[in-house]
């Protein structure tokens, strides 16, 4: 498919997405799409550090949480939403810089476990300091509409995907991929691994903070501890893995399937079964199909083309 055809396809798709709230008034569909867009943002942001750079950071929820918490409180205090979200995302980014230095000193397994533990610490702290759910004040409750939430999540999702696309085509992206393949070799070839990792981490956490900001705007009631719950990390991770690490379409397709599965399965089975399905897919991907769904599709397409050429 050539690029102008692809561009027009994407454009058409986006147009449809923009038009949806004008014709569809059902809240459950709008919620479903909004959630999918939030997940696309969250998973793409993890994709930068985990997919392209190969640093499987399991503390992603911390940045989502910081972004969400700060945005929520600042916005409810009267600050206009865009500024609040920016603040939230910046806070997440700053926190990333602070812990980035010691975190990246840990190698491999220790990095993965260390980031997980760090996020858990944050969750426990906030569970203890702010145990009660934060609910929107009554004046806002009355005026609550899903439509602005929908458009906000769409804007942020498009922004995130664009940024990831830009990274993938840039020198930074090349550097990240080389680090993923073999960090020592990359270093020997002159790639400044520390700088690259840090930059990727900053972008990744900034976007995660934005995703948190969208959620903060969306949620009627939010328990602060829940904003830091590990499930936000894990959902992003399995979406990226199953969809296809280090690809653009991977997290997008992954998010769509994930949220779809979640909505469908919750109708017939107790909650959480979508995790069961995705968890099994995750294990299969780790063991047999490291390229995820996208990788699988690529492989099938290539063998078909190879066969056709014969």
């Amino acid at each position, binding site marked *: 498919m050539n690029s102008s055809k692809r561009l027009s396809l994407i454009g058409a798709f986006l147009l449809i997405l923009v038009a949806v709230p004008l014709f569809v008034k059902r809240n459950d569909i709008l919620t479903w799409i909004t959630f999918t867009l939030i997940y696309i943002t969250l998973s793409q942001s993890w994709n930068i550090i985990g997919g392209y750079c190969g640093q*499987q950071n399991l503390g992603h929820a911390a940045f989502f949480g910081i972004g969400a918490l700060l945005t929520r409180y600042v916005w409810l205090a009267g600050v206009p939403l865009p500024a609040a979200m920016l603040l939230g995302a910046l806070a997440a980014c700053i926190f990333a810089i602070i812990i980035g230095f*010691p975190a990246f*000193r*840990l190698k*491999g*397994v*220790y990095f*993965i*476990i*260390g980031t997980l*533990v*760090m996020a*858990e*610490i944050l969750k*426990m*702290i906030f569970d*203890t300091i702010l145990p009660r759910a934060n609910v929107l004040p009554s004046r806002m409750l009355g005026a609550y509409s899903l439509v602005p939430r929908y458009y906000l999540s769409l804007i942020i999702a498009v922004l995130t995907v664009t940024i990831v696309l830009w990274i993938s085509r840039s020198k930074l992206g090349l550097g990240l991929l080389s680090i993923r393949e073999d960090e020592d070799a990359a270093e020997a070839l002159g790639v400044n691994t520390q700088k690259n990792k840090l930059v990727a981490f900053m972008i990744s956490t900034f976007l995660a903070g934005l995703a948190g900001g969208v959620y903060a705007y969306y949620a009627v009631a939010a328990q602060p501890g829940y904003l830091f719950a*590990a499930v936000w990390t*894990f959902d992003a*991770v*399995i979406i990226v*893995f199953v969809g296809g690490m280090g690809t653009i379409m991977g997290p997008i397709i992954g998010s769509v399937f994930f949220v779809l599965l979640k909505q469908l399965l919750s109708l017939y*089975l*107790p909650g*959480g*079964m979508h*995790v*069961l399905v*995705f*968890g*099994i897919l*995750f*294990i299969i991907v*780790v*063991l047999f199909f490291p390229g995820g769904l996208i990788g699988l599709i690529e492989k099938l397409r290539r063998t078909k083309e190879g066969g056709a050429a014969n």
Partner: protein
Amino acid sequence: MAIELWSQTFVNGINIGALYALTAVGLSLTFGVMKILNVGHGEFLMLGGYLAYWLLTLFKVDPFLSLPLVFIALFFLGAIAYKLFFSVLSGYPEEQKVKNSLLVGFGLFLVIPQIARLLWTGDERGITPAYSGSSFPLLDVRIAYVPLGGVILAVIVIAALHLFLKKTYFGKAVRATSENWKGAKLTGINVDRTYLITFSLGTAIAGLGGVMVGLTQSISPDVGMEWTLKALIVLVLAGIGSIGGTLAAGLTLGILESVGAIFMGPYAVVLGLVIFLLILMFRPQGLFGKA
């Protein structure tokens, strides 16, 4: 502060610390020998607890008597899990093996609680035999029977494991495999089978821990990760390769948390995790491990 409070705190710390040690020792074995950090370790603990719960409520089997049954069951479950998920990785180069096994364990952590939820619902279950709450006085403290049983169990299991590794032929083969698997193969040791048995031993011991968790606290589908984290903290405190060190580290963590609860209240839970991070960054070989 009153001496009785200190003593009781100390006893509580020993009680919970013994459980921490028991949970950690299985993980230590697996990681030390095979370099597999099974992040799904706590899930096997959870399954062990549920099994004991079933045995008690359905068949009236006393939890302490059900320990051997749980051990055998979780041994087999572990063997199946190893064959299905981890043995594929044994040929990989070490760094990839460690990372991928972590991811696979993570997958188990995602999947097993959902299965548990289907089988037992999300409610918390306690294993409560008739003697659950009873205790006896010793000097100024009350010693509860059930946690005491846990401490004795932990000591017996860890001592047995230590003897097994030191004195038996197969135990020596396990140690040899962890030191040099190539050399082990060349002396006639079936390394694949050694890995299988080691992994299964780890999950079996975790199952025993689960029984104690059910007896002293409660079992729910999500309880696994919490205990995996505790085991990781103990592991990092103790360092790899020291079974006795694991017992000491577990008890230390228990006592630290117990004392911490007095001064820090609800924040004491964070204590262990913070210590974990600090040690990871500044002394990765742990307090008792080899550098």
